């Protein structure tokens, strides 16, 4: 019996796409619950004594545009990929990666600008929440960057091709999610701060 079943795929090919997509969707649902927990904690604390309102620096607007652009480049990459333009697709994935790095750098600059304005992590709850929530989002972006890096290299080695589009779809799904998540958080902070 040893080795039996190991040689054959556990997930039948016909169900592979459905299975991995479902798994990613469920993972995204639990990440959503994580941020829902944080943002609802924020709402509960809002309106208590000593709640500091402040304006977000301009850089966060720029970051929002950057990460939206990165979703666009990744999607254009997918369109190139689907018609077999692998090198163009790879270039667009690298561009997405670069925009992601730029986003993180922008977040870093934004945090520094806030700190220099006296809005610090150790300050009131409204200040702390911004750092913790945007920081938690940045951690998820770093995960996405790892996935993009892997995807770009896999397309270069032609491990991900038209015969195997699932990895691209999964990475894109996660990256768009991280993008939309930031959009939600940004609008959330704009309204509540």
């Amino acid at each position, binding site marked *: 019996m040893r080795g039996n079943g*190991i040689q054959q795929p556990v*997930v039948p090919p016909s*169900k592979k796409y459905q299975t991995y997509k479902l798994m990613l969707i469920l993972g995204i649902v639990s990440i959503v619950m994580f*941020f829902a927990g944080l943002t609802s*904690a924020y709402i509960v604390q809002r309106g208590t004594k000593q709640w500091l309102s402040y304006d977000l620096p301009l850089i966060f607007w720029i970051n929002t545009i950057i990460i939206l652009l990165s979703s666009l480049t990744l999607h254009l990459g997918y369109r190139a990929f689907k018609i077999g333009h692998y090198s163009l697709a790879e270039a667009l994935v690298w561009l997405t990666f670069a925009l992601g790095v730029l986003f993180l750098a922008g977040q870093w600059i934004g945090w520094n600008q806030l700190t220099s304005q006296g809005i610090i992590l*150790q300050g009131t709850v409204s200040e702390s929440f911004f750092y913790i929530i945007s920081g938690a989002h940045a951690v998820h972006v770093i995960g996405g960057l790892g996935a993009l890096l892997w995807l770009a290299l896999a397309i270069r080695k032609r491990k991900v091709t038209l015969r195997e589009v699932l990895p691209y779809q999964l990475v894109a799904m996660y990256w768009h999610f991280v993008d939309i998540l930031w959009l939600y958080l940004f609008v959330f902070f704009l309204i509540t701060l």
Partner: protein
Amino acid sequence: MSEVLRQGVNQESAHTEGHHNGNGLSFWEKWHRGESFFSKYVFSMDHKVIAKQFLLTGMFWGVMGGLLSLVFRLQLAYPDTPIPFFEVILGKWGEGGILDPNFYNSLITIHGTVLVFFVLTGGLSGTFANLLVPLQIGARDMASPFLNMLSYWTFFLASVIMFVSIFLPWGPAASGWTAYPPLSALKELPNMGIGMDLWLVSIVLFIISALFGGLNYVTTILNMRTKGMTMARLPLPVWGMFIASVLGLLSFPVLLAAGVLLLADRHLGTSFYLSEIFFNGQALPNYGGSPILYQHLFWFLGHPEVYIIIIPAMGLVSEVLAVNSRKPIFGYTAMVISMASIMFLSFLVWAHHMFVSGMNPFLGSMFMYMTLAIAIPSAVKVFNWLFTIWRGNLRLTPAMVFALGFVATFIIGGLGGIFLGNAVNDILLHDTYFVVGHFHVVMGVSALLAMFAAIYHWFPKMFGRMMNRTLGYIHFLFTIIPALLVFVPMHHMGMAGVPRRYYSFQSFDYLAQWQDINLFITTMAIIGFSGQLIFFYNFFYSIFRGKKPSSNNPWKATTLEWTTEEMAPGHGNWKGQVPTVYRWAYEYSPPYLKDTDYVPQHIPPEQIKKEPVKVSEPVE
């Protein structure tokens, strides 16, 4: 019947690879083929091996948690008497035989944490979701065996960190398993330094492990069922695992958020949970936070968590009861709907843990109604279990007596919940031994009994041998009787106002009368714990020397896990094809059957030997 069983394995999608000779392969090649020692038994991706790993880790923590409880029970039984033995086992925490009060807090903290998370969540659903989900739905493994392996090893890492924290010279976490701030957020307090940090890290890892597991179980159940296995034909253990996993996926991340904020309060200088605290005569700089916020976040998981424990237990027990009553489960659809409505309601009741935390009475009564509403699906389930065994052809196997024990303790403990769910009663009973007695009976003892039922029932599937029946019955008596004698008196203590989590009751005159009861409870706890040694002997002896089962389907069950060619199958589960399913999982004693009293799920209808249905005379 056995020929029929063989033929029932359908012929489509034929695929059998010959056995590859493992000699002459490099270490990594063997690894990838799953043939090296490490990949077979240690970093295995086989769901059955992972199930056993979860089970053994859970059993280890069960012993550990039990031993910790015996230490604090001895303290409660002999509050004034030095016990020299303490110094031997606890070192500086038991100097001169006197238990350190801070260490008492650590003992109850670790006891609660490991039993709730590591034994009853990791040990119970980790084991049986892994073992049963692929086997009962007819899949070769989980949707992602790799993620499954990662889930176990994250759990293992969490276990190691928790274990190390117990032996730290600065003391393990002492905040109670709920880790309420401000206590848990101030690292300067005794036993709240690095021990508490390790506790938090361990819980964070455990949450990640539970999420990996849950992702896998849900995806596997939705996507990998064999031909003919519709959702409406799933055996109830699979339904239980499915609902509990969805519950976990939605609630564990919120605990993660609570833990992240707590870690930030401890190490980044934030004040999410802290405000206006004086410590050693000095005001702390923290301002503006609220400890109540933590309670909300914690119980948003914490309450679903008790259902994450009990719903899989309900599923497992339903299966054992139906198989051993030789009757279809009563109200299959009602069972599924009631589990789903418990899941739904469990998200709306968390604040019943916070009736005394300062809550708007209107809000409190809303949570009270929701809480009491959970009694309805719970009662539906109890009713269905009772009607499943009603006039059944009962076979009192060890698994069956444990399952019956589950139903009994679930009723007893559940009644206590009706007292506590009522806000007015809760104000009196909150933080007394009534609460301790209630949750130990309804979620501790009953989930443990369900776990034992499942171990006795599916032991042959795991190890290919049977456990000893006589020892099983003795184990049952030595479990349920001491357990009830430990926890039922606690209800009475609680009604008399004995507060929980106290190191000793010597300074309060009105509590002195309970000293004898405390001694009695401790004695029963020791007897109950010793009773588990019978189980451990039986378990480990049977792995190597147990009786071989007479057939591949020793309990004559209908579900797919008993259709594998080998009793304890290798990776891939079925050597040939995965069987096709033709009916639900509870076709026991249908009136049309000749010679036998059950139809397995994979037997095609044309192979059933039928006889004309006779209309029986009404029984007087």
